[in-house]
């Protein structure tokens, strides 16, 4: 069991992505890094994870904290940001990423929404892979 947005958790997520044939097919033409950012109490970013995604595989996966967050997110094509309650729903499969973006539950703080639309299935499979990682959330104890 790994706490979300930590290095062991994102490592386990990358392993699940590597095992997902569905993701590999759906994201065959995807090129570029994507990050999930966790909103803090002041609306900034408390933690983030960055995935370097390329043609259906994950080339690198990193958890970001502190001073590493801003420069890493600046070098990321797509950044999706939300509070913990929203990420909990996304990772549980209750809130699909594209619907989350269209409804305003998820914020796209970097990148263009229209460019994500061909990857609706890929985004579902990416989240499904995260959902298979035994996870716990801060304050769950």
């Amino acid at each position, binding site marked *: 069991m790994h706490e979300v947005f930590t290095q062991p958790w994102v490592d386990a997520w990358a392993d699940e992505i590597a095992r997902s044939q569905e993701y590999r097919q759906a994201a065959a033409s995807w090129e570029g890094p994507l990050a999930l950012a966790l909103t803090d109490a002041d609306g900034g970013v408390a933690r983030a994870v960055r995935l370097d995604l390329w043609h259906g595989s994950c080339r690198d996966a990193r958890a970001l904290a502190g001073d590493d967050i801003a420069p890493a997110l600046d070098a990321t094509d797509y950044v999706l940001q939300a509070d913990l309650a929203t990420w909990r729903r996304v990772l549980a499969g209750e*809130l*699909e990423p*594209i*619907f989350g*973006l*269209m*409804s*305003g539950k998820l914020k796209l703080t970097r990148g*263009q*929404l*229209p*460019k994500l*639309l*061909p990857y*609706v299935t890929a985004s579902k499979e990416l989240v499904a892979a995260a959902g298979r990682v035994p996870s716990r959330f801060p304050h769950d104890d």
Partner: protein
Amino acid sequence: MADSPTVSPDSPSPAMSEPAAAREFRTLDSRGLDHRLPPMRLWHKAKKIGIWDPQAIDFSQDRAHWQRLSPLEQRVILHQTSLFQAGEESVTLDLLPLIQAIAGEGRLEEEMFLTSFLWEEAKHVEAFDRFLTEVVVDRTDLAAFQGPCYEQIFHHELPTALGALRDDPSPSAQAAASVTYNMIVEGVLAETGYHAYAKMLQENGILPGMQTVVGHLKSDEARHLAYGVFLLSRLVAEHGDDLWQVVEARMQELLPLALGVVQELFAEYPDPPFGLDVDEFVLFASMQFQRRFQRIEKARSQTLDEIYRLDDEQREVAA
């Protein structure tokens, strides 16, 4: 004179042989019509600004413009127009069960507005039919423009969700039907499509008759959407989070299909004419969808009275 069955004024028809339940007519007692209700305000607007006649549209210049367009330009306009026309035919055919469900609950003001709603959808069908008959003329293979996502919505999701109300007019079924009809078909597809279509015609200075039609359509659809936001807000305020979950789940189910329709359209035109831009479609649809979604979600913490007394300014924002 041919013989006909003798019917005495006193002999009940078969339909009247059962004892009639006592019925109250609210317009005969102190209640009367509540003109402050949002659907009643929309009804008054519909009577004032929704009375255009498709037969009065002047398509004479449109025919000349059409003949001067390139084959690619004609195809792009025909593609969009045929999707609009099939969509308008669908919503005209499919709306009645919702009206019947609302009428069955005795919501007179809402039913009154819905009569204008259906009448306007029928006029939209007539307007596009005139354009196709008098301007385009050749109507061969128009159905071929429908892609898989479009077919799933208009051949299956819409008629199924609305038709289900005949047997199950429950609040949950009404919510699923309204999300399908108002939020997805009208709110994402029609409104976004008409916005882009109108902009394309205006910026290129073509088809003035159709520009007039689309101006009317946008105005009519704004009232329909305002009713949809009202209906879903009322249902959420009345029935709480269980109903909200139906609304959100149905939106999640259908939104990818609606966005798929936009992608299907643009996939056929790698270099679209008229300055059409898929990004503009998607961003407009997203902005409008988000506004309405948040308005309906707000109803989770509102009373029914607050929904009924929404002031004009708030209602305009919601629509």
